[in-house]
């Protein structure tokens, strides 16, 4: 669906930056080197990672492409703060 949306409308929407909201946890893109080390550490392939769609609003400020890995630092009820990783997919 995202593809069919007009460029202009998308631009308008992208003005809104959800990452500023207090309920949106911190999203960061792993560098290629980090991503490689990450996959090696967990002996995981991209399809074994939890997914995140490329049109996810929280990723807007990051300029990501499919295959990137996103590190999310969240608040946790049990551990205080926790790190989570998700792989970017398109559709």
């Amino acid at each position, binding site marked *: 669906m995202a593809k069919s949306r007009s460029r202009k409308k998308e631009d308008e929407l992208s003005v809104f930056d959800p990452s500023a909201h207090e309920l949106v946890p911190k999203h960061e893109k792993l560098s290629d080197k980090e991503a490689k080390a990450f996959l090696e550490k967990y002996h995981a392939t991209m399809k074994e990672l939890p997914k995140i769609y490329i049109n996810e609003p929280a990723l807007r400020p990051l300029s990501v492409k499919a295959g990137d890995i996103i590190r999310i630092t969240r608040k946790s009820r049990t*551990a205080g703060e926790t*790190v*989570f990783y998700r792989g970017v997919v398109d559709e």
Partner: protein
Amino acid sequence: MDIPVAKKVCEIEFSIMSPKFVKEMAAAKIVTPELYDKEGYPVDGGLMDIRLGVIDPGLRCKTCGQRLKECPGHFGYIELARPVVHIQFVRLVLDLLRCTCSTCGKILIPKQQVNKFREELDKISDTLGDTERRARIAEIVSELRTVSKCPSCSAKQKKITLEKPTTYLEDERRISPIEIRTRLERITDEDLVIFGIKPDSMRPEWAVLTVLPIPPVTMRPSITLESGERSEDDLTHKLGDIVRINQRLFENINAGAPEIIIEDLWDLLQYHVTTFFDNDVSQLPPARHRSGQPLKTISGRIKSKEGRIRHNLAGKRTNFSARTVISPDPGLDINEVGVPKVMAMKLTVPERVTEWNMQYLKDFVKKGSGEYPGANYIVRPDGKRKRITDETKEQLLEEIEPGFLVERHLLDGDIALFNRQPSLHRMSMMCHKVRVLPGLTLRLNPAVCTPYNADFDGDEMNLHIPQTEEARAEAEILLQVQTQIVSPRYGLSIIGCNQDAITGNYILTKYLKLPRNKAVDLLAGVGVTDFSRLPNKDTLTGHEIFSMVLPKDFSFKGKPRSAKPEHVEAAVEIKNGMLLKGTLDKNNLGSGKGLLLRTIHKRYGPDETVKILGRIYKLGINVLLRFGFTMYLSDTDLDKETQEAISTLLGEARDTVQELIGKYRDGSLEPLPGRSPEETLELRILERLNEARNAAGNAVLTSGVDDTGLMIMVNSGARGSNIQVAQMSAVVGQQAMRGGRIDKGYNGRTLSCFKRGDLGSAARGFIMNSFKSGLKPHEMFFMAMTGRDSMMDTALRTPKSGYLYRRLANALQDLKVEYDETTRDAAGKIVQYNYGEDKIDVSRSEGGKINVKAIIESNT
């Protein structure tokens, strides 16, 4: 991680058998409804033809040469004199007839567009899946119904209707199955794709039967009754009807009988074939036995609760299991289960005969199956089972030698699995040691009610006896009660004291001082034998007595239930196995509370914990047993001042409510932000009445009585709450429905004894009386209203939440923490990077936390 797959199902094809296929696979053609000849031998070409398989021992199958149980059975067929419609394909045939031209057989879509539709369907199955494709086909079919002219040959299309169950009408004129068949034959292969039929695997005309496969005799065996008579299977009966009518139809056609007679017979054949497949067609009277009981034909065998799938495939039953009502027996150990003697004589344990236990096992055989510790069967090494009866006993005793198995009755100390449904967590099925008891119920120690979530208002439980050494070892290691003490849900003991055990220990550690002889007597009743640690005094305190059931090097600090954080002096302190101070209550002894039991478990391990807990439990019960415990009506009495205080409180509340209503009526009530005046009034009233109720409750609790039976139970946490005490002695309070005061009932009022529009406290369900003083009639009605409301609520919520839990459990069941500490599902997909985000195994934690400070202290 790739899971190796040896063979993978890539597709399943559903189609209809062609007449040619039916004939090819058949081993015999059936021509006569007779089953057996005069000698009782199956007739050739009859329904029990020996070419269709063997069901008698000793005979060999004429088709495959195998014996009974080896021969899988073989199909036969009959040639139908006239075609009949297959009941399961009635809708398909109807759709096909409606959507194709009655003259040329073409689909009622203009030629140019057929391809377009086909492409559209392919695209749908590629992008959206086959379910959507099917939905689109249904759409196309319903569109084509209205087409009235064939686009290919311009023939007018008449309206085709189905007169249920199997008659097709074209503008009131009946279409015979023969004509239906010729019409279906005319449909081209290319057009079939649009209907979701793959032309290379089936043709639509096969949905109208010309030959009927006869199922093998092995799936419809006849049974020989005691009288020597044979009783045939329902399917055989039905097939007999079909064959008989079919023969008559043949004869009548050949004899050139009038059309009416032939058509009647044809309809009858249609009826029999239909009920052969499905005897529950709503428009047809079901075919019956002579006794009037409906026949169970093919679809009846498969569907519904008693059908093959739900009854035999999904619902397996197990041997060596038992089920009855449960009842409590605190005399049992926590890891024991009391088994009635009658059960113990049916449930058996196989024991292998060796040189060394020969005599021991022969003694069981000697007693036989009718006397208690006996045996029911012996199993020879070749697997032959022999029942032990009075007649066979002597001979079997001779026969027994090493290598035989003796299935002896259940004895004390045997292993059993004990289970209560719904089995929602792993503690719902635990391994207990058997204790054979008189009586007819299964008995369990009330301390294990919590993990099973059992009570004794008629609950039933199941018992299973593991039959192999492996099963017994597995049950003991993984499932025994002591291994389940710490709940993996919250990391605390799920088994603990309850009810009387809490009350007893509370009384013991709060009030009692006993002379030495009584104390020793009490402890001996609990099972303590070593009195060397008992202080050498004439009078012993409850603390000193309780200390005797603790290990001698145990130290612990905990908070009692009643204590507020500032009450340091109320704390429970145990040092070197001596309870120094504090009163033990639910917070320390109960299940899923405090750390006392958890600490014992960590320190002394599962087996020891069960022993200690068992002793604590028995101690509590024995205290009550020896000193008596009850609750009097006078426990709910209040002193005069409190009574007056409460009635003033309630009077004031009622007056303020009236004041608020007055303010509301003259419009001077200040609405709360975002609320209408009505809502504001309701909220203010509710607030005021709650305040009054709480104040009354506090007045009761602070009136200074705390050594009545009632208050002991409430304060120890054994049973009852502060609110319930207040309801009994002071005021029942507001009856709430759906979060507000009661406002249902008659027009403008709740009950007919009130004025319309009365918003006062009494008119909206505030019960001024206590349970002891008794309710006024209108108050009783309000209670009944909320009572019924909450009954309905629980009755509706239980299955809902049960289903929700089931879905959750199924979704999470094969998640597993891997060696790299990630949580993954069965396919290896990561769910969590750190289990629970804090990597804590709750079952090894204390209340979900790891007490690092305590660990460091204990190691220095």
